[in-house]
């Protein structure tokens, strides 16, 4: 795989496009700089007296400012989009432990379960190493789901790259994030905050 995973939520789609846009700008700037360096190294022209370079200095001050604005505006747009008020249809709590996650669905009946990573020796053929778990989190699609993330012991972080989510699990604090999966499927994530010897497992 090269690049980001396919987007499952609208926010992740926006992030993908923003990433493409910004990376293109970065590649353009890098190639321009490399080209100019190569020109500098291969020329026989020299000029040792003081130069007046007012025009080019103005250009290479204004142009980066414009480029930065072109990067910042979509970035801020996505940032505010992530903070939009939406009324979720379901609340799922997840508590980080060393070294597993437990999930609680308490809107209607109480459902709580632990989700351990499947050790490599117990994987079946075709299963992904270090990603498969025994009890998966099942969520409805095309519905806004409120995820409340906390921890029972040390810092963890609940991340699902395909949905564009990464939220820290802090003991004593309840962090909220909303997700909306637009297509059915199986999405993986790993703990994203160092939490001990079996971190990410």
């Amino acid at each position, binding site marked *: 795989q090269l690049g980001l995973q396919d987007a499952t939520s609208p926010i992740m789609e926006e992030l993908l496009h923003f990433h493409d846009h910004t990376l293109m700008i970065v590649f353009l700037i890098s190639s321009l700089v490399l080209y100019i360096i190569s020109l500098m190294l291969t020329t026989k022209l020299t000029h040792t007296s003081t130069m007046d370079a007012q025009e080019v200095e103005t250009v290479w001050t204004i142009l980066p400012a414009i480029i930065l604005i072109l990067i910042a505006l979509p970035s801020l747009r996505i940032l505010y989009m992530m903070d939009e*008020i*939406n*009324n*979720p*249809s*379901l*609340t799922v*709590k997840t*508590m980080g*432990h*060393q070294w*597993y996650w437990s999930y*609680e669905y*308490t*809107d*209607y*009946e*109480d*459902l*709580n*379960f*632990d989700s*351990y990573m499947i050790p490599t020796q*117990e994987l079946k053929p075709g299963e992904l190493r270090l990603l498969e778990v*025994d*009890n998966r989190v099942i969520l409805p699609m095309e519905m806004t789901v*409120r995820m*409340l993330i*906390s921890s*029972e*012991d040390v810092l963890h972080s609940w991340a699902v790259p395909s949905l564009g989510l990464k*939220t820290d699990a802090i003991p*004593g*604090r*309840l*962090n*909220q*994030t909303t997700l909306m999966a637009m297509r059915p499927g199986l999405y993986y994530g790993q703990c994203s905050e160092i939490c001990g010897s079996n971190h990410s497992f």
Partner: protein
Amino acid sequence: MLDVDSQKPPKGKWSTPPFDPRFPNQNQTRNCYQNFLDYHRCVKRMSRRGKSAQPCEYYFRVFHSLCPRSWVSRPRGRRRLAGGARVEGPVQLSRRPPPPRPPAPPQVQRWTEQIQEGTFAGKI
């Protein structure tokens, strides 16, 4: 797994706690705690006036949905499976026994226990 009936929303319009403009940001700790306090205060005042605690049910649903159960009370030891059978301990969905857990840190007293013992820090 759970039977179909328990996956349907109960009669009435409750699905999940709505957006609370008092707590618009990422940190919902206060949302959970405030609704917990409001529930207990509501129950205390209603019972003092001799009225039914039915209006307090909203606060109960909100904190029950938002608060991690380990903060509120000790997990109940008995859980119902499809078919009505009860089992001790959490639902065993795993296909293999979980690995041995590291020793648990000293237990923080949960809120409900603290209220019963009179050591709860909030004002109810």
